[in-house]
C-alpha cells in the first residue's frame, strides 16, 4: 500500500508537518465518574452498571471527588492553569454505546488549560503546548457480529457492554505543535511516552495502552516549506501503541505529501490506523461538521476548586519525570545510552526500587535490562508484570555478591522465583544451587581435569595462562556449574605453579 507513496525524506523536503495530539487517559478511580459502579477491567458484560451509568430515566449523576482531584493534579503536572470555576457540559449526539445519547464532558470551561511540557528526542528538546485537559466519561464497548471482519462495516448487528460507560476520562489536547520537522512522528511518540510516565508517577491511571486506558488520536497537517498557513488536517483515531503513533504519523505525512505534491487536496477527515497492514484508511468526513449542541450540564453544579485545595494537590505532585531521570542518572552513574535503554524499556521504577532495596545500581540495571527484559519479552509481559519484585532482585544480587551464586546459578534462581518457588534464598536451598566452596571437592575435580588434559596443562605450565579456560570449563562441567569460576581458576593456576 505504501509503495505508491512518496518517500518520507522526499515529503519532508517539501513540507513541514504540524501535529495535534488528543490523548484520553482513563483514571484509576475505584468507582465510575458519576456513580458507584466499579471500574475494574474485565468484568462479566454489564455486571458493572446501575441506573446512573445505564442512563435510565430519572437517574442523576454525582461527581466522583477523586476524579476531580486527579484532573487537577494532571493539570498541574502539565503546567496548566486550574480553573477557579468550571462546569460540565453535555455533548449531544446519538450513538448506541452512549446510554444517555449525550456525553457528559467539558466544553468551553475545562478544568485545566494553557500548559505545556518539554519532550526530548535525540538530545533535542521540543516544546509541546497544551491547550486543555478536561474531564469526561467513557462509553460502552461495542462488539460487532457478522460480516467478515468483526468490524463495524458489514456487521449484521452489534452487542453492547456498558461496563466501561461512565469510567472517568481526562482528555488532554495539545495546541498545534510546529517546528518538529522530520522528527514529528518521534516527537509525538515521545510526548505520549512522557504522558504515560507522568500518569504513572501521579498514580492516576493504569496507563495500559493495550487495555485502552491511554488512547491517542493523532492529528497532522502539512505546510509547504516556507509557508505558515495551516493545511487541512486528518485525525487518525485510536492509535494504541507507542510504535503505531510513530508509524501512523509517518504514513500520514507521506500520504498527504503525495496528494499535495500532485496538486491534490487533503480531505479533512478521521482516519483509521491498521496495525496489520501499517496504513490508514478514511473514516467519517469532517466536512459536514457535527453539531453537538453543547450546553452546561443542568444535573451537575459547577466545580470551583479553592486556591487552597489546588495548592494542597500541588504539594502531592511527584518529581517531574525529566528531573527525576536526570537525578537518578547522576546518582547511578549510568551513561546516556544506558539510561535511555532503562527508560525506554520501562525499567526506571524497577531499578529505583531495586537500588532502594540495597542493590548497587549497575547490577540492578544489568538484571532488569537484560535477563529480565528477555523473560518479559518471551512471556509477552510488561517488565513490571513479571512475577519477581525489586526486593527479590536485590536479594538475588546479594547472594551473587556473597559468592553463593554465580551468574549461571542466579539465572536458575530466577527460574525458580518466576515459577513461584519462593524467595531467592529458598530457591537456592530447595534446588540445591549454591556454589560449591569446599576446596577439597574442587581440588579433586581440578586434579582430574589436569590429568584428562595433559596438553593444556603443559601449555599453562609454559606460561600460557589464557589456556586455563579449557580446564575451568571442564571443572565447571563436572561440578554441574555449582562452582565459583574464579576460585577454580585460582586452584588450577596454583596447582600448575603459575601463581
Amino acid at each position, binding site marked *: 500500500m505504501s509503495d505508491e507513496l512518496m518517500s518520507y525524506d522526499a515529503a519532508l523536503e517539501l513540507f513541514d508537518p504540524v501535529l495535534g495530539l488528543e490523548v484520553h487517559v482513563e483514571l484509576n*478511580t*475505584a*468507582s465510575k465518574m458519576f*456513580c*458507584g*459502579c*466499579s471500574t475494574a477491567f474485565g468484568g*462479566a*458484560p*454489564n*455486571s*458493572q*452498571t*446501575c*441506573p446512573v451509568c*445505564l442512563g435510565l430515566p430519572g437517574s442523576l449523576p*454525582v*461527581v*466522583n*471527588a*477523586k*476524579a*476531580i482531584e486527579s484532573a487537577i493534579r494532571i493539570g498541574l503536572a502539565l503546567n496548566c492553569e486550574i480553573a477557579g470555576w468550571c*462546569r460540565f457540559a453535555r*455533548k449531544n*449526539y*446519538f*450513538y*448506541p*454505546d452512549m446510554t444517555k445519547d449525550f456525553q457528559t464532558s467539558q466544553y468551553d470551561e475545562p478544568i485545566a488549560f494553557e500548559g505545556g511540557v518539554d519532550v526530548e528526542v535525540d538530545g533535542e528538546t521540543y516544546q509541546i503546548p497544551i491547550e486543555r485537559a478536561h474531564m469526561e466519561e467513557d*462509553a460502552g464497548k*461495542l*462488539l*460487532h*457480529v*457478522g460480516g467478515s471482519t468483526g468490524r*463495524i462495516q458489514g*456487521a*449484521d*448487528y*452489534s*452487542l*453492547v*457492554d*456498558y461496563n466501561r460507560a461512565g469510567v472517568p476520562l481526562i482528555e488532554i489536547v495539545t495546541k498545534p505543535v510546529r517546528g518538529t520537522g522530520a522528527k514529528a512522528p518521534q516527537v509525538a511518540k515521545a510526548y505520549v511516552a512522557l504522558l504515560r510516565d507522568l500518569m504513572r508517577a501521579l498514580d492516576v491511571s493504569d496507563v495500559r495502552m493495550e487495555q485502552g486506558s491511554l488512547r491517542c488520536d493523532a492529528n497532522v497537517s502539512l505546510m509547504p516549506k516556507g509557508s505558515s498557513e495551516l493545511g487541512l488536517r486528518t485525525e487518525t483515531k485510536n492509535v494504541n501503541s507507542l510504535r503505531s503513533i510513530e508509524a501512523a504519523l509517518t504514513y500520514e505525512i507521506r500520504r498527504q505529501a503525495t496528494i499535495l505534491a500532485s496538486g491534490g487536496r487533503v480531505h479533512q477527515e*478521521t482516519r483509521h490506523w491498521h496495525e496489520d497492514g501499517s496504513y490508514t484508511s478514511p*473514516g*467519517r468526513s469532517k466536512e459536514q461538521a*457535527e*453539531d*453537538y*449542541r453543547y450546553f*452546561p450540564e*443542568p444535573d*451537575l*453544579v*459547577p*466545580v*470551583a*476548586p479553592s486556591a487552597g485545595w489546588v495548592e494542597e494537590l500541588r504539594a502531592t505532585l511527584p518529581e517531574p519525570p525529566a528531573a527525576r531521570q536526570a537525578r537518578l542518572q547522576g546518582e547511578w552513574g549510568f551513561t546516556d545510552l544506558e539510561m535511555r535503554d532503562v527508560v525506554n524499556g520501562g525499567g526506571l521504577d524497577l531499578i529505583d526500587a531495586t537500588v532502594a532495596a540495597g542493590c548497587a545500581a549497575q547490577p540492578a540495571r544489568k538484571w532488569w535490562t537484560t535477563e529480565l527484559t528477555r523473560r518479559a519479552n518471551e512471556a509477552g509481559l510488561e517488565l513490571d508484570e513479571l512475577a519477581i519484585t525489586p526486593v527479590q532482585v536485590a536479594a538475588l544480587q546479594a547472594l551473587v555478591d556473597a559468592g553463593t551464586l554465580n551468574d549461571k546459578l542466579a539465572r536458575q534462581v530466577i527460574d525458580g522465583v518466576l515459577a513461584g518457588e519462593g524467595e531467592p534464598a529458598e530457591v537456592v536451598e530447595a534446588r540445591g544451587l549454591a556454589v560449591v566452596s569446599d576446596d577439597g571437592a574442587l581440588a579433586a575435580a581440578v586434579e582430574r581435569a589436569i590429568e584428562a588434559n595433559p596438553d593444556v596443562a603443559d601449555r599453562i605450565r609454559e606460561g600460557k595462562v589464557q589456556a586455563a579456560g579449557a580446564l575451568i570449563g571442564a571443572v565447571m562441567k563436572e561440578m554441574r556449574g555449582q562452582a565459583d569460576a574464579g576460585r577454580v581458576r585460582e586452584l588450577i593456576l596454583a596447582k600448575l605453579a603459575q601463581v
Partner: protein
Amino acid sequence: MAITPAEVGRLAELARISMTPDELAQLAPQLEVILESVARVTEVAAGDVPPTSHALPLTNVFRADEVTGSLPVADVLAAAPAAEDDRFRVPRILGEQA
C-alpha cells in the same frame, strides 16, 4: 424568520425523529410562531447580564470514590428490546463514533 419544512426536517434528523412530510409541514408554521414569540428574550438580554444555569448557587457537590454496587445483570437486561450473551443487542450501526 420563516421556518421551512426542510429546515424542520434537518432538525428532526439531528434529533433522530422520523417525521412524515405532513408532520413537517404542520410543525414548520407552529415553530415559526413560537420562535417569533420567544425571540423577545433578546430585547432585554444585555451583554453584561451574567447567565443563570442553576436557580441556586451550589458548587463542589462530590461523592467519595467508593464502589457502592451495581444492578444484577438480569435487572439490567430485563427491559432490553433484544439481548444476547448478557449484552444489549442493537441493529447494525452505519455511522462511526464521534
